[in-house]
């Protein structure tokens, strides 16, 4: 109905809304998933903070004024100690006597209670948090137990969990950046999981055998890591060469590399284990352990409370986004994916672009491998199995077309987060892994379906905007 001039205001708004939703469907889905996860994880939360410690102190003062003797019970963690200190500060100068304090396990509470029973003077109250208030010795101590009131809040929306969600999938997201480039050129890279493992093992073996093992310097560790990334980039270059010089379909070329790289990772790891035990026996395909403590910084450290893998992911994301939107290279990649022949005829260096794209994808996989090795304090030859599928799923869910030419880096990041949120939401909601697989499969099918039907939507949108020529090219 192209000449629908008499459109009502409500109709126009409805159209605008739908148009907006259509353009940002993946964002909408992500928001919806976050909402569902929040509802499904609406649980009792038990605060262990300085504030809740103060609240407990006030409870004690109200219900058990001086001369009252209190045992403070907390676990041996940082948060618990802060909590316990707040209790004691709240009770300062009130005449309430601190009979004792326990930082430990239920067993330590029992021992402390036995010690207190040996002394004279009764124990009136125990001040602790909700978790320890369930401990057997606390419950059977015969004293009044004070703990902070719990409140209800979605476990999904706790800072710790949100950081977990992103952190756990930072490696997938990093590889997905590289995979987006490959898929934009209408290619595919199945070798990323294996390149991840190879990079991790090479970095670990290099750190252990060439750069000093436990005594390795930060510069040595960095060199070992770069070596791993370089090896993965080289692997990517190899598949790029197969694709460009020999016209091997990307699926087959990277399938070959996938097996090759996995095999090399296993050989290197087993060889290292064999050298560890002094030759002779066959080594085992265990992780190649890195003794230098600094090696774990990238995977397990944090900057201002944000885990390093997330920081790395964000930096790479911004870099990739700029690369694809602000540079000639980015335009070339879209051009190659849109129509190779047209790109070639208009002077785009197709071969160089494809080589660079596969090489970058390998390097991103290698970086993810370094993150993995650092996280587990060693290179795991079995790491990244089936990652290629998760990564491709993230890219496709993020809206990139497997036919090439269409897709955005931002979309990929959202796609990776959609998968992350589903996984995490289902996990903490207690959905068994078998059902999770069904959800994932359905999600990927839906995303591909969406991809197939996209031209129809675009044409309908074009009709709705009455022949406006500004069809989105992304």
């Amino acid at each position, binding site marked *: 109905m192209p000449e629908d001039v008499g459109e009502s205001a409500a109709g126009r708004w409805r159209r605008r809304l739908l148009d907006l*939703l*259509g353009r940002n469907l993946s964002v909408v889905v992500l928001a919806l998933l976050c909402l569902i996860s929040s509802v499904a994880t609406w649980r009792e939360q038990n605060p262990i903070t300085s504030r809740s410690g103060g609240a407990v102190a006030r409870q004690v003062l109200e219900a058990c004024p001086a001369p009252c003797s209190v045992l403070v019970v907390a676990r041996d963690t940082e948060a618990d100690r802060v909590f316990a200190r707040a209790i004691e500060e709240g009770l300062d100068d009130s005449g309430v006597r601190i009979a004792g304090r326990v930082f430990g396990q239920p067993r330590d509470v029992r021992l402390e209670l036995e010690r207190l029973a040996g002394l004279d003077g009764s124990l009136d109250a125990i001040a602790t948090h909700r978790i320890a208030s369930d401990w057997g010795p606390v419950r059977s101590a015969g004293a009044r137990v004070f703990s902070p009131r719990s409140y209800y809040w979605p476990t999904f929306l706790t800072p710790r969990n949100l950081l977990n969600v992103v952190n756990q999938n930072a490696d997938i997201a990093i590889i997905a950046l590289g995979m987006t480039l490959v898929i934009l050129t209408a290619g595919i890279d199945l070798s990323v999981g294996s390149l991840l493992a190879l990079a991790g093992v090479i970095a670990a073996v290099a750190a252990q055998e060439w750069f000093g093992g436990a005594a390795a310097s930060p510069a040595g560790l960095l060199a070992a890591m770069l070596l791993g990334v370089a090896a993965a980039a080289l692997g990517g270059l190899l598949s790029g060469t197969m694709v460009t010089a020999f016209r091997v379909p990307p699926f087959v070329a990277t399938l070959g590399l996938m097996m090759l790289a996995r095999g090399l990772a296993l050989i290197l790891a087993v060889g290292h284990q064999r050298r560890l035990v002094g030759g002779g026996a066959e080594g085992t395909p265990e992780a190649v352990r890195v003794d230098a403590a600094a090696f774990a910084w990238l995977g397990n450290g944090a900057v201002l409370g944000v885990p390093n893998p997330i920081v790395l992911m964000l930096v790479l994301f911004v870099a990739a986004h700029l690369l694809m939107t602000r540079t000639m290279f980015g335009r070339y990649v879209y051009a190659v994916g849109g129509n190779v022949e047209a790109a070639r005829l208009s002077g785009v260096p197709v071969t160089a672009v494809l080589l660079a794209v596969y090489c970058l994808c390998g390097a991103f996989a290698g970086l993810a491998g370094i993150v993995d090795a650092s996280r587990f304090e060693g290179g795991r030859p079995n790491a990244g199995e089936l990652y290629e599928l998760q990564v491709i799923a993230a890219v496709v869910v993020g809206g990139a077309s497997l036919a090439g030419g269409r897709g955005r880096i931002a979309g990929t990041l959202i796609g990776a987060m959609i998968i992350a949120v589903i996984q995490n939401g289902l996990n903490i909601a207690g959905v068994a*892994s078998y059902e999770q697989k069904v959800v994932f499969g359905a999600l990927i099918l839906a995303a591909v379906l969406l991809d197939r039907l996209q031209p129809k939507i675009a044409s309908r949108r074009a009709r709705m905007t009455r022949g406006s020529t500004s069809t989105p090219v992304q």
Partner: protein
Amino acid sequence: MLTWMLVAMSFAALGACGGGTDGGDGSGSVTRGTIGFSAMTLKNPFFKIIADSLTAEAERHGFDVVVTDAERDVNRQSQQVDNFLASGVVAIVLNPVDRIAIGPAVRRANEAGVPVFTSDLQAVADGVEIAGHVGTDNYQGGLLAGEAMIEALGEAGGEVLVLHFKQANSCVLRVDGFRHAIGEYNRDRTEGRIEIVAELEGGGLRDEGYRAMADGIQAYPDLAGVFAINDPSALGARTALEQAGRADQVRIVGFDGEIAGRQAIRDEKIYADPIQYPDRMGVMTVQNIVRYLDGEDFERVHLIPTELYRQADAEQDPTLD
């Protein structure tokens, strides 16, 4: 356009109903808290039995249980540990997928003050604190497997092959025990000795065990016996031997005593198994958690001895139909 919204809504429904049926009962009710269990792989019935017995026993004591499947991937298992910590469980139970690489995750649990218990497999990483372990005495099991092999081969002795799964420390202990028993037997013998001619990777799985055995028959035509480190790989080996027409000449000793293995023993397809008790592992682990929370002392490492299970036992086994 509305179609796509419907697609999204269907996920919503799927997610919501999944959450409702499996995990929604944890909130609000009066429980002693949640125990998180990350199983090695729920594709192997052995670990499913641990999960089921652990769940039943924990519920009897008033706990909720969340069971997750690490699918033999330590990355996945670490993520599951982090998720347990974020959702505030009172205790975590693991079958460590990788005894060393699981270290950082266990350390995070230690830092959060949440006790970690292991079952079946142990964690040996540096600086980790494991509150309790219940597993099989695998070395003793290996000794029994050796005795069973000696019994099966009789005075003739012969060449024996081992189907290994080196990645698992439990299996390394089994083979160590097996080798020790065979070594003791051979000590004063010049005739009828038992020679362990090779250790092949059977992956602890039926298909990999099958392939390894098929190759093993070619390489060692005079084989008299096979020790497979678990039932799936023993059954895979049996299939390979049957296909090669060698099933009558090569005796198999397995390990585990899972139901398919016990049926094979009844049908004389496997000679004998040292059997493990995964159901007891689940129950004892929960009992340890209860003792931990009650501040009682308990055995930090408890190894359950295996028992040899032969055809005579299978015939009286009421669980086999």
